[in-house]
């Protein structure tokens, strides 16, 4: 269970600042930020606190349980970003 960032993401990273558990990446100080298509939420770390959803200027963030059908694939997209990172690190 987690929150999910979807295609409307504008990479302004205001969500990164409010996240209490630092689970939104890449952060502006991380190398991948400049070329990231969007930001992603790590579902293993997200605590469902809703803080990111409240500050998102473009309504790109949804609770996974409330994801519209058209955006359902983004749950896997968010999780996949971190799986790929872990694989690259291994």
């Amino acid at each position, binding site marked *: 269970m987690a929150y999910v960032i979807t295609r409307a993401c504008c990479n302004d990273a205001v969500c990164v600042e409010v996240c*209490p*558990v630092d689970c939104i990446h890449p952060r502006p100080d991380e190398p991948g930020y400049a070329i990231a298509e969007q930001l992603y939420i790590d579902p*293993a770390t997200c605590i*469902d606190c*809703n803080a990111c959803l409240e500050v998102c200027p473009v309504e790109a963030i949804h609770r*996974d*349980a409330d994801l519209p059908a058209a955006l359902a694939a983004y749950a896997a997209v968010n999780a996949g970003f971190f799986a790929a990172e872990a694989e690259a690190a291994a």
Partner: protein
Amino acid sequence: MERTVHTYCRICLANCGLEVRVDPEANRVLDIKPDRANPYTWRDFCRKGGTAAEVVEHPRRITRPLRGVGDRYEEATYEEAFADIAARLNAVIERHGPDAVGSYHGNPMGFSFATTTFWTGLLDAIGTGNRFWVGSVDQNNCHVVAEELYGSELVALVPDIDDCDCFLLVGMDPAHSRFNWLENNPGGWNRVQARVRDGADLIVVDPRRSDTAAKARTHLAVVPGQDWALLLGLVKVVLERGWDRPSTAVALDGLDAVRRLAAEADLDDLAARCGIERAVIEDVAQRFATARTAMCVSHTGVAHNEHGTVGEWLSHVLNLLCDRIDRPGGRRYERGYVDMVQVMKLFAPGAEHRTRLRDNPPIVGFHALAELADEITTPGPGQIRAMLIAFGNPVVSGPDGATLDRALGELDLLVAFDLVQRESHRHAHWILPGTHWLEREELSPLLGGLQEQPYVQYAAKAVDPPDGMLEEWAVFAELALAMDRNLFGKPGVNKLLRATRALARATRRPGLAFNPQWVQRLLVALGRRLRWSDIRDHPHGWVYGDKRYGDLAGALTTPGKRVRLAPPALMDACREALAQPPATDERFPLLLINKRVREAMNSWLNESPGLFRAARGNVVELHPDDAAAAGVADGDLVRIVSATSAIELRAAVTDAMRPGVACSPHGWGSRVFDPVGGREPEVFGANRNALVDNARLDRLSQTPAMNSVAVRVEPVAAAAGVAVGHGAAGRAG
């Protein structure tokens, strides 16, 4: 009109601060979010708390006393319920003695001090020693070790995460458990990961590559039930290489005895038992012992095994030998804000009672669930003929549920207290409605000693209970009054109850009637650390001091205030374990383990619609080699067979499993009935605890070996003639 209430979640010990939006007119919760003004728990939260209102508004919630009539239930008044239950309990007591009334309570009661206190009051009124609880399938090993080493069953040592350089985590999965069991570290797992990013070492011991183990620098895929052998190996290496730095925080007795025991053990034998190479044990011992700071923490993966108490003990020995107790970055003693010695004197005087059939003593005042079924079904003086079950689901939480279910069906009287009618309540003659924690306000003083920092929060009430519903403490008091037996078993208490109620009525001041707050306020006053009014003035919770080290020495109640490193009972049990060759059974080649699931809490939230949207239920995880040997593919329906029972689940084939090990979480397969509406029961998953033997126990903790159950797995089509399911139809079945 909306109102915002600040309180905390009482589902698990994380006690996350909550901001609850309420519609007072409709008496409804609108929304639950984490309380960002909580100075202690903010940064932790999960969907269990976020969806808690779904249980308040459960479509099958019981809101009136229900009387069993034939194969259905009828609503009754409290007066009718109290009169009938009291008369039947009195008849049982008069004819067969107080021990003929048994009790069981589950985990949710632990989060309500008011309910716990008055439950004890009712059981004392009855005078029974046949009290059973959920701790006997969970945490008893910790209480036994605390008593043996530190002199009190209630001593807990809290991990001091932020200053730790080396985490040795045994049988736990904080990525899901949130690092809490008998301790609370808000955001604990995220903080461990932050330490690891800063260079700390993380060693995880688990037969399965859990989400926690996947992040470890070293993952030790131990053989289930053999953590004790690994820990003894670590102790041996530390002592023999001279890496020990005995505790500077407490005085130790028995170091030589531990040295002798370690010398008797052979490292290659220990390595073979636990399935971890000798060189790896030596490496981990060195990393743990020579790190600047370190902690060894063991949880349920260790506890729920035949040698679970020995394993827990050895984790303390390892910490004490390396100066990891009550030191920065180790495991700290938090004294809380009540005087535990006083509390024990007031509420838990040493119970002498022993079980009739197996002659076992109680642990923290309660007997083991594993013994309950036999105590009900075996005739003779002291046989249990009536049971009170409060916020518990022992048929699902405990071993061999089918046997216990049959036993409960033989009772003359079964009274259940809960929000819904669960699996264990299907034979109930009476069901009395329970309140939800969002409907109660209270202080739980005993949780103070389990917090990572000096912390307290008064639990506010968000909504009122449904119209006319009594809180549990009041129900228990009414039952004692109706039985005309003194609450708490103390002469004059019922008179005091009646007199203070009369006074409250006459003066129109309800607070003057005896109620649980009297006890809570008394404990705070006796503790002499905090003032009641100051606690109430901090609605978001209050970190009332700085954490400090060194309080354990003063809290020891052992002779000479020295830690008993080598208690004879544990030394003997460890030698027994060493003398016992590892058992194998060709009929049951796999060992079944349990796991934590972030959205689940034992058996009591699995039907909440807001949780588990993707997949509701449990599966059995198998290593590809074991699946192939059994002729099973990913997603197949399989039958899991033990010497005790059989269940059916879908298989998930994954190389995260150690070969020879199967994994399935417990808590599933508990029906929720519809006693008034008569709709079909709801059920998700299957009860894997049904496979567990109720006689193969850790004899020190009296806990079943739920984490090393010998099983075989077979495709469903290939097997025939094995009884599966919930047994014969019961009253509501």
